[in-house]
Structure formats: structure tokens, C-alpha cells
């Protein structure tokens, strides 16, 4: 079974090559059908492997089994978390492709195969990254998913914003990737190995951490945190998500960003966890500070948006912060919670983007103010959108709620407040949109005098992704978010799922020695209800008395940070490396 692991990459790649080969001559329907079939086939493979992942599968590409404990090949790790991410990616990809079936028509003339081919390449890159057990191999797949993501983000080249967002995304992420590679080179210099587990072992053999280990840690984490969009590496994300085609947004926000978090988790657990790595206290400090900042800034900026896609993008940032806090506990419970949270969040967030895509295609705008009351006829979409918002808030029994409550318990203490507030504020913002756009509640938002030059991206003047605005919503476009929400619900409601996740995490990190039990607790349910009520309350106040919760003038400096200027983002990236270094510095000073 373990020999089939590389096929998670090879199958979508073959599909992409096939589509690129025949893409010029086949009709669009055929190309999309092939794309869906191949990605669904990969998903089936991933699920089959996942069910067989106990004990974890370990495969040596090229059959280079270790001799005397060392191999010259590349190791692929098919443990629960890795295959779980691969399965999540592979399940979301056919959903995005099915959604794009009717919603999205900008195939380059006479090349119907290029969009599904790029999506398949994206899937291959993400699967490869998820199962990589070798640091450089992880970098390679990381680059593949980045490169494809740039191209997909800029896919609508006729849109000025699309190409700008894609370029910013590409520059910042490439720089992050080069930082990651510098880190790999430093670690290789010290250890002479590339497999993550081997690097960890060699670091432990060398002795206590020094400046070199710290630099390796900072550089590797910089690359991964740029992908995960943690503050202050996050600036590219709203710009890219606001402009990418909707099906691509579903993948970017649903799984790619989370893969950054997954990468952080993987690297921390295998490379830096031993005595030669960094002390737990320092890693915890770094992740907790960045996580809390990310959650706070993401939630706040989310609340201030009126461009719905941008709003959702900021909510992804806020949730990334929550994930980072969870894995920052460095406990098994924290990992369990984050794993569940990521699964639930992927479904909810992708569904929300899908609903927003319907608005864009139907009305040619994603501006909350312009759309006020216009979407009243779309009852079904309204239900889905509201359900998504409640899922985001963590209403039991969504998977997000279970994940959140488990993580909250692991984090404990005052940080619980961050969880409740961040999820409530982001969900409140989404509910506010739902109330205004789908129900037409509250006064129509007035453009303040002199609002013309306000420092924000409004979301009006966006082009629909279909050539003509849709007159009625195709069934696939509503079916996909419905299925995704059902999935998110099932992640929390299906008995045994959480236990399976917990078992997989325990086997991946402690070889099954430490068992945790994951279940609903009264406190968790209560906190979930609290954040949901808080979200509803916030939304209600915002709709009825818009002035009360409108962004104050004090918020302007925060907005100004998001300047759309690629030079600023690079400057922040450099500052971020320094911050990371300072946060983890005590490890070296005392060691």
C-alpha cells in the first residue's frame, strides 16, 4: 500500500499533462469532466490510503530503502495528518472544479484544458507537500503550488486588480520560498541530511541550539508563515484572494493557507522538537505572539471590509492565527483541535466563497453596500451563506465548533477570549453581510461625504466571471456549497470522526503512546454558543445602528498598512524575520 503514496502526486500530474496535450482540440465539457474525474480519483486514492494509515505509511521514492539507517532517497510520510491534508485537498479540488463548471468562463481562446490542468497541478503540488518527509522535497512541491497559485490568481488578465494582486502574491511568496531554501541550506550545512527526521536527529546529536539553529528555524518558518499568512507576513493574502477567480479562492483559503500551518507543525514536530532543536518555551512564545496578533488583526480588518471576498480573506487570516495558537501549545490536544478545526474551516470557508461567487456572477459586484437588499430573491443562497457564517462562529455541531472547543481547552486561560472574540467578530462580519445583502435589513449604507477617496477597496466594479451576468443560478453552484457545509457539519457531528482524528494525530506524533480523547464538553458547547450569540449580536447592532460599530478614524493607520505596495510587503517580511528571531532568541542566549 505504501508504494502507492507517490501516486497522489503522479495521478493529477498525468491528468494535467493529458489535458495540456489535448486541451486545444477538445470541448470544454470534456476537459472539465476529465479534470473532475482525475481529481476525484486522486481523492479516492487519498481516502483509501488514509484509512490504511495506521500505523503510518513510510515510502522511499525510487525504492531507496535506508541502508544502515541512512537512505539517499526521498522519504514520503503517509501518516494521518499528512494523508488527511492530502485527502482534504483532493476532496476540495473536485468541488472547486465542479463549481467552476458553470460559474466561470474565461478559458483562453481555444484552450479549454488549461484551467482544469492548472487546478490539477495545484492539487498535485499540495498533495506532494502534504506527504513530503524530506525538507527539500517539501520545498519543491511548495514551489509548485506557489507557481500554479500565481498563475491561477492572475487568470483573469483583463482585470487590472487581478494581475496586481497576483504579482504581489508572487513576489512576496517567492521571497518567502527563497528564505525557506536558505534555511534548508543552513540546516543541511550543520547536519548533512535532508530528511526531516534525520535533520532532527543530527541536530540533537550536535548539542544544544545555537545561532545556526535559530537562523534555520527563523528562515524555514518565514517561508511557511508567508504561505500561512501570519502577521506580519499576511499582506499578500487579501490582495490575492480578493481578485482570484472564485473556485481558486475556495482552494487558496480552504487548504493552501492551512498547508502553511501544517508545514509549520510538521517542521516543528520533526526538525526542531528534540534537545538540539529549539526549547519548547521559545517556540511556544513565538507562535503564541504571532498567532494572537494574527487573530486580532485579521478579525479587526475583517470587520472593516465591505468587499465581501476581502472580508472572507481577512477571516481566513484570523483563523490562521487561531490555528497557530493551537499548534503553539505543542500539546497533542492542541494538534487534535487544530486538525478538526482545519477540516471544518475548509468546508465552511470554501462554501462562503462559493456563495460570494454566486453574488459576483449574478450582480457583478461583491460590495456589501452596493448589494444592499439586491439578493433577496436568492433564498437558497441566503440560507447557505448564513449557515456558513454560523459555522465560522463555531455553532455546535459544526466541525469548526468541535475543533475550536478542543483547541480552547488545550490553550486555556486568557487566550480562550481570543478564540471567542476572533470567531465571533469574523462571523459577525459575515452575518452582517448576510443581513444586508440577502435580507436588505437596516438602512441602506450611505456613502459618507468625501468617501470617494476612502482608503479601502470597495468591491464594486468587479467583473463577473461569466461573460454575461447569470439570470438564474446553476444548480452546481448551489450544490457545491451545500455539500461542503454538510461536510463541515459531519466533521463535528459524525460520532467517531473526532476520535479517528485524535488517534491519527497520536500515532503521527507519539507513535500512539499517548492517547487523547476528543469529544464535546459542556464548556466547549457553551463557548461555541457564546461566540455565535456574540456574532449575531454584533451583526444586529451593525445593521441597525451602522454608526455605532463603523470603523473609527483611529483604525485608519491599520488600514494604511495594507497599502497594496509590494515594497511595503517585502519590508514587513524582513521585519517579520527579525520579530521571529527576537521571539525565539532566549533559546540561544541561555543555551
Amino acid at each position: 500500500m505504501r508504494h502507492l503514496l507517490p501516486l497522489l502526486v503522479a495521478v493529477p500530474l498525468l491528468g494535467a499533462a493529458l489535458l495540456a496535450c489535448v486541451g486545444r482540440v477538445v470541448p470544454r465539457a470534456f476537459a472539465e469532466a476529465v479534470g473532475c474525474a482525475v481529481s476525484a480519483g486522486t481523492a479516492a486514492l487519498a481516502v483509501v490510503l488514509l484509512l490504511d494509515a495506521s500505523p503510518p505509511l513510510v515510502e522511499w521514492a525510487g525504492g531507496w530503502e535506508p541502508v544502515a539507517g541512512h537512505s539517499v532517497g526521498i522519504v514520503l510520510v503517509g501518516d494521518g495528518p499528512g494523508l488527511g491534508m492530502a485527502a482534504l485537498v483532493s476532496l476540495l479540488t473536485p468541488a472547486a472544479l465542479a463549481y467552476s463548471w458553470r460559474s466561470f468562463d474565461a478559458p483562453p481562446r481555444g484552450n479549454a484544458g488549461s484551467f482544469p490542468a492548472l487546478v490539477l497541478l495545484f492539487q498535485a503540488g499540495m498533495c506532494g507537500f502534504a506527504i513530503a518527509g524530506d525538507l527539500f522535497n517539501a520545498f519543491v512541491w511548495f514551489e509548485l503550488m506557489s507557481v500554479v497559485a500565481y498563475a491561477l490568481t492572475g487568470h483573469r488578465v483583463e482585470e487590472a486588480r487581478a494581475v496586481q494582486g497576483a504579482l504581489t502574491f508572487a513576489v512576496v511568496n517567492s521571497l518567502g520560498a527563497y528564505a525557506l531554501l536558505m534555511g534548508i541550506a543552513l540546516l543541511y550545512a550543520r547536519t548533512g541530511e535532508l530528511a526531516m527526521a534525520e535533520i532532527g536527529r543530527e541536530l540533537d546529536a550536535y548539542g544544544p541550539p545555537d545561532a545556526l539553529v535559530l537562523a534555520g528555524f527563523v528562515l524555514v518558518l518565514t517561508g511557511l508563515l508567508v504561505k500561512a499568512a501570519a502577521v506580519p507576513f499576511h499582506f499578500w493574502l487579501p490582495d490575492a484572494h480578493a481578485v482570484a477567480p472564485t473556485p481558486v479562492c475556495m482552494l487558496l483559503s480552504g487548504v493552501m493557507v492551512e498547508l502553511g500551518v501544517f508545514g509549520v507543525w510538521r517542521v516543528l514536530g520533526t526538525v526542531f522538537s528534540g534537545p538540539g532543536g529549539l526549547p519548547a518555551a521559545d517556540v511556544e512564545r513565538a507562535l503564541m505572539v504571532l498567532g494572537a496578533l494574527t487573530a486580532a488583526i485579521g478579525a479587526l480588518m475583517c470587520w472593516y471590509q465591505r468587499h465581501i471576498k476581502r472580508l472572507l480573506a481577512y477571516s481566513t487570516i484570523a483563523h490562521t492565527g487561531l490555528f497557530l495558537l493551537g499548534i503553539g501549545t505543542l500539546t497533542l490536544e492542541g494538534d487534535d483541535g487544530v486538525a478538526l478545526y482545519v477540516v471544518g474551516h475548509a468546508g465552511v470557508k470554501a462554501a462562503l466563497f462559493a456563495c460570494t461567487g454566486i453574488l459576483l456572477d449574478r450582480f457583478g459586484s461583491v460590495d456589501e453596500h452596493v448589494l444592499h437588499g439586491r439578493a433577496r430573491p436568492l433564498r437558497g443562497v441566503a440560507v447557505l451563506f448564513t449557515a456558513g457564517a454560523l459555522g465560522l462562529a463555531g455553532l455546535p455541531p459544526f466541525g469548526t465548533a468541535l475543533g475550536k472547543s478542543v483547541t480552547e481547552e488545550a490553550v486555556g486561560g486568557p487566550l480562550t477570549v481570543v478564540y471567542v472574540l476572533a470567531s465571533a467578530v469574523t462571523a459577525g462580519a459575515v452575518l452582517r453581510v448576510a443581513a444586508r445583502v440577502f435580507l436588505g435589513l437596516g438602512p441602506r449604507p450611505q456613502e459618507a461625504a468625501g468617501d470617494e477617496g476612502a482608503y479601502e477597496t470597495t468591491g464594486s466594479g468587479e467583473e463577473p466571471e461569466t461573460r454575461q451576468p447569470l439570470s438564474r443560478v446553476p444548480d452546481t453552484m448551489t450544490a457545491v456549497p451545500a455539500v461542503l457545509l454538510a461536510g463541515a457539519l459531519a466533521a463535528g457531528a459524525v460520532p467517531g470522526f473526532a476520535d479517528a482524528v485524535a488517534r491519527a494525530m497520536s500515532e503521527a506524533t507519539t507513535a500512539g503512546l499517548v492517547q487523547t480523547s476528543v469529544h464535546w464538553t459542556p464548556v466547549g458547547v457553551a463557548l461555541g454558543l457564546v461566540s455565535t450569540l456574540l456574532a449575531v449580536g454584533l451583526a444586529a447592532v451593525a445593521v441597525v445602528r451602522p454608526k455605532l460599530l463603523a470603523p473609527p478614524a483611529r483604525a485608519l493607520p491599520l488600514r494604511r498598512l495594507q497599502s497594496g505596495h509590494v515594497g511595503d510587503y517585502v519590508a514587513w517580511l524582513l521585519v517579520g524575520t527579525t520579530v521571529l528571531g527576537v521571539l525565539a532568541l532566549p533559546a540561544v542566549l541561555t543555551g
Partner: protein
Amino acid sequence: MNPRTRLWLVATGGAGLAALLVAACLRLPRFGGDRHPYGDRAVHASLERHTANTVASVNFDQRAFDTLGEMTILFAAVLGCVVLLRQTRDEHRAHPEPADVARPVRRYALLVLPVALLTGLYVVAHGQLSPGGGFQGGVVAATALHVLYLGADYRALERVRPVGAYEVGDALATSAYLVTGVAGLIGGTAFLANTLLPYGTFNTLSSGGTVPLLNAAVGMEVACAVVVLLAGFLDQAVEIVDEGEDDDRAGDGHHHEERGK
């Protein structure tokens, strides 16, 4: 953010990163040190499989899975460029006029073209023996074709460069690499396992098992990919014109326009 603030940020962040990296450099093993455990194992494994160029052995045998990713990145970038540089609805094509190139340049181009193509092939074919390989040779061969653009003109280049065919070639070469990998899985022991073919005699063209095959696949992929990539850029720079563009026909040498394809 104004440039001044940005400069301060860059200075702060850069100084911190610089301090960190310099401190790390001082802790790195001495430049030229003797400890390379993985490298030594790789040399050993390469010689065991009769591959004279150890780097080729690492690329196409021991870490062939990395190279799969690498060639896929190229494949994806080319596909991405084709998508990004497509002719949009508000653009049209203008055919460039033939350029008149000084005779010595033309002669030189005609001389270099076959030599460079041959060199490219030579570099690919000897990939598992001497320095070089699919990537290097592929780029040389693809660049060779574009000597036609320099030595003659764009139309001459277009005649030897049906972009569609090169796109198909690109995809086929990628598939060939993947199929070889899957064959290793079915007929051998693992994905991309180099156990199907005999390893041959050390330091000959057919040595190394599947290394020459994968090498050739990469060579073809790279050559096709670079051609398609440059085609996209040349198209934009030479042929595609949009409304906002400077179209001083006389200086440009454009004639005979046609609206979109």
C-alpha cells in the same frame, strides 16, 4: 506608506536578519570542510549503479522525485504563462514586417544554429556522463532556435516553431517521465525505481538504467517549454497590440492588421 517609513522598516528588518544570518554563518562548519555524509553516500550509490555523473544520478535516480517536481514547476509555469499572456478580447495582432539584418549577422546565425542544436543534443545525451543533462541541453537547444529571430526575423522563427506542437511535446515529455515512474512502480519496486533496465557499462551512453531515459524526457520537456515560454513573450512584444499601445506603424514595421483570431 511613504518611502521614508519603508526605508526605516527595511533597515530595521534587514539589520535584524543580517545580524541573525551573520551569527549563523560564524557557526557554520568551516568552508571546505570534510563532513558530507549524504554526499558521500550519494557518490557511492551512483557508482554502484554505473552512473559516471553523480549529479545526474542524484537528479534522475536517487532524488528523481525532486526532479519530477522541478519539471512540473516548469510545466506549470509554461502553462501559466500561456494563460497569462494570451491574446485578450481588446487586443489584435499586427504582423511584423521582415527585418533586414546585416549580412555577417545572418551568416553567423545560420552557422550557429546547427552548432548550437548539436551542442544541445550532445549535452543532453552525455548527461549521465559529463557535466550537463536534460535541463542544460534543453535550454541550449531551445535558445538555438531563437537565433533565427536574431539572425533573420520573427517570421523565419515562426516557420520553425508551431507553438501548438511544442506545447504537446512539453506535455508528452512530462507524461513520459511520469510513465517511467509508474513503470518502476508496476514492474519494479517503487515509484521511479531504477530497477527495470540493466545498468550497463560504466561511462558509456547507455549506462545508468533509466537515468538516460528520464534525462531525455527532461531535455525534451525543457526544450519545448522554453520555446513556448519565449513564444508567449515574443508574441506580446512583437505581434499583439492593444488600444493603448504606441502603434507608430512606420517605425515599427507593422503592416496588415487583423482583428483577433
